[in-house]
Structures are given as C-alpha cells and as structure tokens.
C-alpha cells in the first residue's frame, strides 16, 4: 500500500528533529533542522501593543513546553499574547544555505519578528473572520540577519476565543531547502492520496446509489451510498491527522462539516446494518438510539471528552449490532464483523499516530468489503429473481394445466358428445359453461393475485360444467366476502374441483360455503363442503392440487400463511390463514 511509503519518511523527520533546552544554539553541527523545546509566553491586554513595546526582560514571561501539549497552553489564552525566544547562531561561514523558521500547528493568526523586524505573518490580528487556515508556516530568516551571536524571535499571536481544540504546536528552525522540498513533497503526496480516497469513496457512493435505483429501491444500498458519500466529503475537509490537527479545520469552520459528515456516515452505517440484518423486535430500540446520536453530537464540539464519548458510542454501536446479528445467525454477519474489526484496527492505528489517514483507509477497506458483499447479494438476488420468474411461469402453466387437464377436457368432451347426440340444447349450454371457464382462466392466468370475485366466477363456471357431468346440483355461497379481496388465482377453484371430483358419489346436491373471517393480524378463509368423502386428508395429499395451492400462497404471502384441511360434521373444511406482515 502506498501509505507504507510514509512510515520511514515520517520516522526520518522525527529523528532529524532533536530538542534543545534554554537558548537555542545553532552551529555547524546542524544537519537539517532543530526543534524548540520551550518558549516564553506573555499575555498582553492591548490589541494595539507593538512588538517594540514588548519588554523581553519582564518578569511576567512564563515558560511553556512546546510539542506534546503546547497547543493547550497557547489556545487557552484569549486575545493577544506573545511568544519569545533567543537563538544563538555561531560559525556563520558554514551556513551556505538559507535558514528557515517553521511554525507547525499554531492555528491562530500571528506575526513573526526576527530581531524586531517582521519576517512573516498569518491571518489578520484582530479580525475574527479573517483567519488563514494554513497549518504550517515557513518563514525564511533574511540573510542579512544571519549574523553570529544572539537573535530574538518574537511571535505575536491572536486567539479569537475558539479555543476548544488541542494543538501540538511546534517551532522548528532548519535549512530552507530541507523544509521546502520535503514539505512540498509530503503535502503533494498527501493531497493526491486524499483525492484518491475521495474519488474511491465517491465512486462507491455512486455505485450503491445505482444499486438502490436498479434493485428494487432497497434502502440498504441507499444508506450505504450515504455512508460512502459522507466519508468522501469528510475526507475532503479532514485535517491531516485525526485529533491532533482539528484546530486548523476548526478555525476554517470545516469542523462543523466534518462533524456533520461524520455523523451522517455513522447514522447511515447504523441504518445500513439494521436494515441489512432486518431485526424485528430490536428495530425500534436501535432506531431510537440512532435518533439520539445527533443530540450527543450537538453537545460534542463544546467539550472534547464528550466528543470522544460520542466517537466511542458510534464506533461501538455498529459492533454491538453486528455481534447481535452474529448471535442471531444472520446471513453475512461474520463477514461484516471481520470487515468492521479490521477497519477499526486501521482507525486505531491512525489515532495512536501509527498510520497516516488510517481512519479513511479503514473506511475504504470496509467499503470494499461491503461492495463485495453487495455484488454477491445481487448475484444471489438475480438468481432468485430468475427462479421466481421461472416459478411464476411454472405456476401459470400449472394453473392452465389444472383447468385444461387432459382428463378434465376428455371427460367433458365425452359428456358433450352424448349431449350433442341426445340433447343439442343442453350441449350448447355445456359448451358455453366450458368456454366461460376458459375465458376467465385466460384472463387471470398471468396474475399473481386476483380478486375473490373473479375466482368465484371461475368456481361457478366450473360447478356449472360439473353439474352437467355429474348430474348433481352444486351451490356455492359466501359469507363475509366483499369480492375485492386479493388471493392467488385458482386456489379455491382447486379445492372446489377436489370437492366435486371426490365428494359426491351418491349425493345429488352439493354445497360449498366460502367464509371470510377477519381476525387480529389475520385473515381466515374457510371453504366448507358437504361432501361424503371420508378421507379428505388423503385426497388433499394425493393430488397435485394441494402442492399448487401451497406454492401459490408461498409466492404471494411468503411465510405468512397456513393451510389446514379436516373432516368436520357433514363434510370437510379447508382453512387458509393469511397473516399480516
């Protein structure tokens, strides 16, 4: 990975900077640069106080340590303050290169004086809204002033009260070439890396958005797209080191965008995980937690610790969700857990300063994991879709076959043959009834769900045919049926067909009653039939009819139906329960 390239480079920078105590002495031993370990600090009230008015011998000067916690000391002062140190230059002739002062992470407006002469500045002192976001200031020490002996470095700093972020401020003196070349190289490389990360994340966001629109508007993809987009935007505004350099972003106002994006990303991630694993009971609890997160985030910028708490919460919550999913044996939970864990390791490496931009790399890694998963899912989804299409086609076929079963047609034709020869008027009626059933079937055969009134029409047409054939009077009545209820085509027809075929060996009257009962979270259809067949279970099991009904119900109400058939007084009944989702 490209990032590994930076590790030796970063180590090189750190080893080349060594600290000096007291007055900094620069001589021929300087190879690249030297870092100030401490500096004097003085708070002044007046905004207009000139550098010439500063008494460098005043006893009010405090000494602060630069480096690790310097930012806290510097930023905790409101308004104007001064930083001062003396530097001793010797063995001048050996300085063939220009000397440069480098200010790192003094995220405040300032003016830099070398022996009372201003050599550099950042932002505008006193103007609250004109703050330069430049993180590193490099100021050349004019050649004329590089005379041997003691020199004064005085920095006027203006703090505009936005003081909430810790800085690691450093002041380094070294050769102009060293700073410029290395720094430039580093900055450019980092910038390119940043653009690369952003582009990859943005592409992932687009990819998931396409998946969202392309695959049945599955919100899982929408949330993951948001996750990628938020991280892409966050990366753009992000300072180069997590936590350490928030000051810079804070000064430019980007911190709010970063927070917003960070929040959006994490909420999207949580939403993604919750929808992905489709929890039922926990759904509401976790959703509420997500809503609470913005509240935590709103408090966060006021206090670093709360921000840390917030950070921990939104980093840990996904783990809790995924671990719970793993416990519930949800599909892909282990894969996501591994992705999340490895991504978190990269983030932690970033926080402890071991891996530059590790947080973004972690996100990138996670995005790749999820993208692989999404692709796999889509492949599965496609396969399932194809299977469903095939199944629907098969069912449509089956429905038609149920109606035009060869023996049904052949038997009907035989009856018809007799009628044609013996009673042509009745023959016409039978042909009409047969045609009606066929017309109705061809109308609904392509549908997954049809209205009960259509189904009842088919049933009645079928009963008319069977009346001719069996010389039995069949009556189909309904109770509680509105007619608009949707059911898969042919299910009651199949049951009625079973009834007429098996049920009436000696009876000359047949009764079918279809009842609908609406219960709590449940719609129940009961088909009663006063047939004399004893072994209804056997009949139901034997024929392909039951299989057809079950497949149709499963297609339209997956996992939400129940079918029972039983012998009751004076006949048998089939109960179909359809549960609400």
């Amino acid at each position, binding site marked *: 990975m490209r990032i590994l390239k930076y590790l030796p480079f970063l180590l090189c920078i750190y080893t080349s900077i060594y600290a000096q105590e007291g007055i900094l002495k620069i001589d021929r031993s300087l190879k690249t640069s030297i870092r100030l370990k401490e500096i004097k600090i003085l708070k002044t009230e007046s905004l207009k106080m000139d550098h010439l008015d500063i008494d460098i011998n005043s006893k009010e000067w405090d000494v602060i340590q630069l480096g690790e916690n310097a930012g806290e000391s510097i930023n905790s002062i409101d308004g104007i303050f001064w930083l001062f140190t003396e530097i001793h230059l010797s063995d001048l002739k050996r300085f063939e290169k220009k000397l440069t002062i480098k200010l790192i992470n003094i995220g405040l407006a300032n003016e830099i004086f070398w022996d009372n002469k201003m050599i550099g500045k950042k932002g505008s002192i006193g103007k609250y809204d004109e703050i330069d976001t430049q993180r590193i200031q490099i100021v050349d020490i004019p050649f004329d002033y590089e005379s041997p002996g003691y020199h004064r470095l005085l920095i006027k700093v203006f703090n505009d009260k936005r003081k909430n972020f810790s800085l690691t401020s450093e002041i380094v003196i070294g050769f102009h070439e060293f700073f410029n070349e290395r720094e430039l190289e580093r900055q450019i490389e980092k910038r390119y890396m940043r653009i690369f990360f952003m582009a990859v994340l943005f592409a992932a966001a687009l990819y998931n958005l396409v998946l969202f629109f392309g695959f049945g508007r599955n919100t899982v993809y929408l949330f993951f797209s948001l996750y990628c987009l938020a991280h892409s935007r966050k990366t753009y505004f992000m300072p180069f080191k997590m936590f350490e350099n928030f000051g810079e972003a804070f000064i430019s106002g980007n911190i709010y965008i970063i927070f917003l994006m960070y929040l959006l990303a994490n909420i999207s991630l949580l939403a993604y995980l919750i929808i992905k694993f489709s929890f039922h009971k926990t759904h509401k609890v976790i959703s509420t937690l997500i809503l609470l997160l913005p509240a935590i985030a709103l408090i966060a910028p006021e206090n670093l610790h709360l921000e840390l708490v917030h950070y921990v919460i939104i980093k840990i919550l996904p783990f809790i969700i995924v671990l719970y999913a793993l416990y519930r044996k949800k599909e892909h939970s282990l894969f996501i857990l591994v992705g999340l864990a490895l991504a978190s390791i990269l983030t932690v490496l970033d926080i402890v300063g071991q891996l530059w931009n590790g947080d973004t790399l972690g996100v990138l890694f996670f995005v790749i994991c999820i993208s692989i998963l999404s692709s796999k899912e889509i492949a599965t989804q496609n396969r399932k879709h194809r299977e469903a299409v095939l199944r629907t086609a098969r069912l449509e076929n089956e429905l038609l076959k149920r109606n035009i079963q060869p*023996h049904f047609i052949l038997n009907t034709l035989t009856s018809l043959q007799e009628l044609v020869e013996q009673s042509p008027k009745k023959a016409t009626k039978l042909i009409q009834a047969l045609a009606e059933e066929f017309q109705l079937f061809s109308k609904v055969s392509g549908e997954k769900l049809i209205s009960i009134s259509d189904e009842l029409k088919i049933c009645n047409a079928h009963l008319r045919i069977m009346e001719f054939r069996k*010389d039995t009077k069949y009556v189909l009545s309904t109770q509680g049926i509105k007619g608009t209820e949707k059911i898969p085509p042919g299910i009651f027809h199949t049951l009625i067909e079973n009834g007429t*075929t098996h049920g009436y060996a000696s009876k000359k009257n047949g009764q079918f009653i279809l009842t609908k009962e609406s219960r709590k979270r449940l719609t129940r259809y009961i088909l009663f039939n006063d047939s004399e067949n004893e072994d209804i279970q056997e009949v139901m099991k034997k024929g392909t009819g039951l299989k057809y009904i079950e497949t149709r119900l499963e297609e339209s109400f997956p996992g939400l139906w129940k079918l029972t058939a039983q012998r009751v007084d004076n006949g048998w009944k089939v109960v179909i329960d359809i549960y609400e989702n």
Partner: protein
Amino acid sequence: MIVVIVEDEPLVANRIERLIKAILKEKLTKIIVKNSLQEAMHYLFEYPIDLLLLDLNLHGKDGFELLKHAVSGSFHTIIISAHIDRAIEAFEYGVLDFVGKPFTKERMKKALLRLENVEAKNTYPTKYIAVRKSGKLLLLEVEKINYIKGAGIYSEIILKDGRSELHDKSLNKLNVILPSNFVRTHKSYIVNMQCVKNFSSLGGSKYTLELSGNEILPVSRIKYQEIKKHLTR
C-alpha cells in the same frame, strides 16, 4: 350377454349403455350400470357377467385396484377412460381393450368385436395374470408361465417352477390377452413357446411338444404349421 358398466358420470354411462345396446342388439341380455367402485366390486363377484366396461377414475379414486380384481374374473374387461396415459399399464394387467374418451360408436364396436375374435392377440402384451386364491389376489408374471391347461370353464396355469394355479377365465379368453409367444397348441393347451425344448413327431401325423420341465404335451394336427413357424422364427 350380461354387461356391467362402471362409470361415475351419468351422461357418459348413458352413452355407453346406448351404444352397447345398439351394437349388441339381441345378443345383449342384461346391462347394469354402477357408479362407484364399492358397488361394482360387490356385483362383479356375486353375479355371473360376460363383460365389464370400466372407467379408471371414479370419484377421484384410482380404479386400478378394481381392475386387478376384475381381470381375475371369468369375464373380459374393457377400459373406457380419459386417462389414456395409463393404457399400456392396463394392457399389462390383461384387459381386452382400452377405449379412450371421448369415443364413437365405431370404436366401441371394434372393442366389442375383440370379444368374438378368439385368435387375435392384443397389441400390448400382458405382463401379469391375476388369480384369486382363497379370497386373495395373486399376480402371476406371464413370463413365468410354462403352459396353461383347460379345465372345463376354468384354466389351470402351470408355472415354470411347477406350481399350478386355477384361473376363472377359459382358455379361449386367456388366449386373447396373452402375448404372441403363447400359442394354442391343442384345444386343451396354451403353451409358452419360449419353454419348448423339443418338437417331435410320433408318426402318423401325431406330434408332441417337450417343455423345459420335461412335460410332454400333445399337439393338435391343425396347429402343426403354426407351431413350426413359431419354432423356426
């Protein structure tokens, strides 16, 4: 001739009855229509009949059980069914004919003609011969039959393993439904030609067949040519 029709659809039963009457005319002495398997079963073995016309699917029930019993009877069985896919299976159990629904008078006539033509063989070979033995149904594999001997109105089936079973059908009726390798060699014998070991002349145009079980059966003079043709094939 007494004919029993087993059919659950009244219109179809009417049609069969009507056509049978028209075809058999005065030959028909009685015609009975049953609409369920139980009723039919009861009737078949209680009363003497000559022909059974059976539908294979009665009130959704498989008529094959009844078929297996029916073919063990003394009468011939003709299937009239829409389940033409089961025709071969029905023939394997030894039905005389299979008439697919719907059917014309001509087709019905053809089926009934098979009753009279005692020499013609079925298109599809019979595989099983059902025998009723002490109230139970016994299915004998046709290829295990050595020869069949006439015993009055019954037949005695002698199997290759030496066992013998009595069948209610006469030799004439069995001959029609048995495969072509079964030849009526004598007025009292039907022989499985695959079991013939030797065909010898005793002189004076008297011939005998020696079967694999060393049985020696007489051959009728008029069957000589036919048997010779069979054996040289």
